[in-house]
């Protein structure tokens, strides 16, 4: 194994059911259901998935949902804005803890 990540492994995602069939199948059935047109369209869900892929920094998901979102008609600018949303939330998540830091410092400082 030369690398922890191999792009060809994305095609083998379905194989995870080989080691635990029942849970694997339940997951993929749920996954398929989640991405169907419903209260949100499949197109909208694809852009959300793209943003989340960046938030969780999953290279497989980024690969899959960059293609999927583009195929579903989102433009490059819209896709990058979605990535910025992920970035802003991640950055904000760090920064908002600054309040905790401030609280602590105020607690101990003279």
């Amino acid at each position, binding site marked *: 194994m030369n690398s922890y990540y191999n792009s060809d492994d994305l*095609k083998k995602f379905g194989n995870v059911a080989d080691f635990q069939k029942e849970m694997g199948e339940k997951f993929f059935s749920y996954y398929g259901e989640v991405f169907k047109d419903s209260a949100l*369209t*499949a*197109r909208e869900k694809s852009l959300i998935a793209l943003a989340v892929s960046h938030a969780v920094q999953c290279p497989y998901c980024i690969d899959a949902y960059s293609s999927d979102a*583009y*195929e579903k008609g989102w433009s490059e600018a819209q896709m990058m804005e979605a990535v910025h949303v992920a970035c802003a939330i991640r950055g904000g998540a760090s920064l908002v803890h600054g309040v905790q830091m401030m609280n602590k410092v105020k607690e101990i400082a003279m």
Partner: protein
Amino acid sequence: MIKSLKARKSVLADVSEQIHILEDRQRNEFPLVPFQQKLEQSGLFPLRPTDLQVFQVNLGKMCNQVCKHCHVDAGPDRKEIMTRSTMQQCLEVLRAHPQLTTVDLTGGAPEMNPDFRWFVEEISDLGKHIIVRCNLTILLANKKYHDLPDFYKMHRVEVVSSLPFYTRDRTDRQRGDGVFDDSIQALRWLNQAGYGMDGTNLILNLVYNPAGSFLPAAQEALESEYKQALMKDFGIRFNNLFAITNLPISRFLDYLLQSGNYERYMEKLVAAYNPAAAANVMCRNTISIGWDGYLYDCDFNQMLDLKVSCSSQHISDFDTGMLNDRNIIIGQHCYGCTAGAGSSCGGAVV
């Protein structure tokens, strides 16, 4: 403007090289399941015609555009044009075969054939349903084409037009700078003539095809986005959207090879093989006629110069008995018509 493969003297201008890449090289360098094997598993091999209904005629390879994905390798430099005598042979066949209810005229830009209007009038007199695959920009290309919307209207022609996307950027990247703006203007003219408008029964269908190495999204969803965007941004209406997959031949094959996407794209097509789409492929009810009168199973086989596999190979020898009894020629390129919801000149097939 890019040039045709022929003008560039590309090795792919020789169709045997395209077939070599699709069949031999694929087998040796990155093995994919042969299309025949997939059809066998689906109980569809040999692939047979169902009932000939659509008579698709390529009026020539000449076009005012040079699109990056064109499977015809059409362009202004292409001089192959159907003659009036070949058209007359087509008319004789159409007259003798009432089951051929639809005549689908394509090119190139079919309107650039000097006998185009005469041919449409003659077919119209036979009472056939006529489809013209109009690239839209031809309407603006020269004054002599400005009245085409009225001409189409007079003969109740169904207009099918490529608009790869509802944004300028993606459309122009595939079809050339300025094509989107001209296409929008042409669509306005067609709307003004009544095309795509409620209650007129003048049909204007648009064609989506991916501007890159990917498959079309769901046709229904795309249609709804197109309708919303074209109405909101330009006040344009149309009837239906056909989502068409790019087949890996001609200039799209060139793009795939040049961009390093060929293998991935082929793998994607194979992975998306759908037996239900295979059962409904257009070659089962369509016959494709080349600019020189030769007969093919479909427009794509025509561009690969794969003539029908029976003795009735030319419009002058048109024999429905033989044509209905033939085996349709298949190859690895056929995966393009069987991926996902399938693809045909009328869009998805399932």
